[in-house]
């Protein structure tokens, strides 16, 4: 489930971080020169934490330069519930489009990956927490149908809090829709590789993201069905170390491998060669 951070920003800070120049690592809490992180594919040089990156940065990282052709960019959300909190849902969408530079929480397209044509489905957490509503579901289902039609491997990169609350039951139904579309790839021997980035939860984890023929996670990504806070409240006990991290899922047999950002493209290319 997508959620807004409700914590108010703390007024007092021990260290003043000049806007834009330095960033604090979410994982090791080190203050690091931003340029250094950018140079390092947005991976913390101190602890190997993989910062969240935008869908556009992800495309640059995975697709051969200049080959990405976007699919289905003409679909937009309606407001079936007439949902309103502090903003109406259409206002919320506009706000997120401005903030993220994305039309929606996912971008799909055809591109070359190390010379081989593939279909990409890439989520962007900065757009409403990467939440899956009707547009996200439709674009993923269509991408899978295109992959099937062209017999091209599909690669998705998930980064999402889950289903989008503002579209209610329509968002829930996207889980079934995208899972059924992935089922058709399986029936026809079209490879589907699912990459899990930080974070992958709820209705996205419990649909296409966990249905990859091969599932790869970025190091230390948080992945699960229920959010850690909900689990802590339900079980009234401390969560184990590393709980819901990529390495935890690997240890429990839930994913195939953990691959660093630096080696992701090469690994995907290798897999596609092997599956061809």
């Amino acid at each position: 489930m997508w959620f807004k951070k409700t914590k108010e920003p703390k007024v007092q800070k021990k260290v003043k971080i000049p806007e834009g120049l330095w960033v604090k690592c979410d994982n090791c809490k080190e203050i690091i020169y931003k340029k250094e992180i950018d140079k390092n594919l947005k991976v913390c040089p101190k602890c190997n934490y993989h910062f969240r990156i935008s869908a556009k940065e992800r495309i640059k990282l995975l697709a051969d330069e200049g080959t990405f052709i976007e699919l289905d960019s003409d679909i937009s959300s309606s407001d079936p519930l007439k949902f309103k909190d502090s903003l109406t849902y259409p206002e919320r969408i506009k706000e997120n489009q401005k903030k993220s530079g994305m039309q929606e929480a996912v971008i799909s397209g055809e591109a070359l990956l190390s010379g081989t044509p593939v279909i990409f489905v890439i989520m962007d957490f900065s757009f409403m927490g990467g939440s899956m509503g009707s547009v996200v579901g439709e674009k993923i289902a269509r991408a899978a149908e295109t992959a099937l039609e062209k017999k091209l491997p599909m690669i998705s990169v998930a980064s999402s809090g889950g289903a989008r609350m503002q579209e209610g039951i329509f968002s829930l139904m996207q889980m079934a829709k995208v899972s059924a579309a992935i089922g058709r790839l399986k029936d026809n021997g079209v490879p589907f590789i699912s990459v899990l980035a930080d974070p992958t939860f709820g209705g996205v984890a419990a649909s296409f993201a966990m249905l990859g023929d091969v599932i790869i996670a970025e190091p230390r990504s948080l992945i699960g069905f229920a959010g850690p806070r909900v689990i802590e409240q339900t079980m009234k006990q401390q969560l184990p170390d590393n709980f819901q991290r990529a390495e935890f899922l690997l240890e429990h047999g839930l994913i195939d491998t953990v691959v660093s950002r630096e080696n992701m493209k090469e690994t995907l290319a290798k897999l596609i060669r092997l599956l061809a």
Partner: protein
Amino acid sequence: MRYYLEFEKPIEELEIKIEELKRLSDRKEIDITSEIKKLEKKAKELRSEIFSNLSPWQKTTLARHPERPYTLDYITLITEDFIELHGDRRFADDPAIIGGFARINDKTLMIIGHQKGRGTKERIYRNFGQPQPEGYRKALRLMRLAERFKKPIVTFIDTPGAYPGIGAEERGQSEAIATNLMEMSRIKTPIISIVIGEGGSGGALALGVSDRVFMVEHSVYSVISPEGCAAILWRKDGDLGAEEFAKAADALKLTAQDLLRFKVIDDIIPEPLGGAHRDSAAVAKNIADVVIKSIEDLSSKSAGKLIEDRYKRLRKMGSLEFAGT
């Protein structure tokens, strides 16, 4: 003693008074039958007025009513020869989901459903109807069993959601749900689903990818509970209560009537005045009729056509706008 919900308090007062008068008329010679009749009529009118104007939040509390019929109650009421089949063959048997073969109208069906418990002990045993991954894997095992023997599948949906626990995560709650969604979309026998109480998010949908989906009149089906939605929207504003939950329930459009309007479900199965628990046999009869008719409609389709139509049904789900051509 009956269990009355908050909004039923005026009915409760009247019904208690009627009971008192009945006791009185048994003991004394004064004739108060006409008085009782008058009050009974008034109670019925009151109930009819209240129940025809239920808010989404009131419906949510009714869908969670502790006396509401559960999956096993309906199985007892409408089937013969039910035999429960246990376990996922991998880790455990999850009592929050039950399933097995049974007959309705002389036809063998696989019946699978979420199961809540009645009374503290059984409620805990059933984990309040919140399945572990094993529950979903058992359900899928039973669906494949039904497919192998070409038997239709009926699922009853009634869960607050999949269980959010450490073990559930360790054993792949997401994977279990995702796999059910995908596999249900291509099971080669008819699947009919009925939301009988709470349809709580992905944990409900994992039994609900079907050829026909129905909701019992006062059931609810939603991507998130009103409490969860309220917590996301207004947690920072302090303690949450019925007022906020009611606002969230309104916003989520989670009633059977909303979902029929959205064309997410095929039809609504009526409940007796006062809710399903007032006459579970009557609701069970309505459910049986719908199940028998749906199976008749679907049984003429080939496996290929069945799966094709199920896919088309899912592909239509969504609320979209298209820019230009």
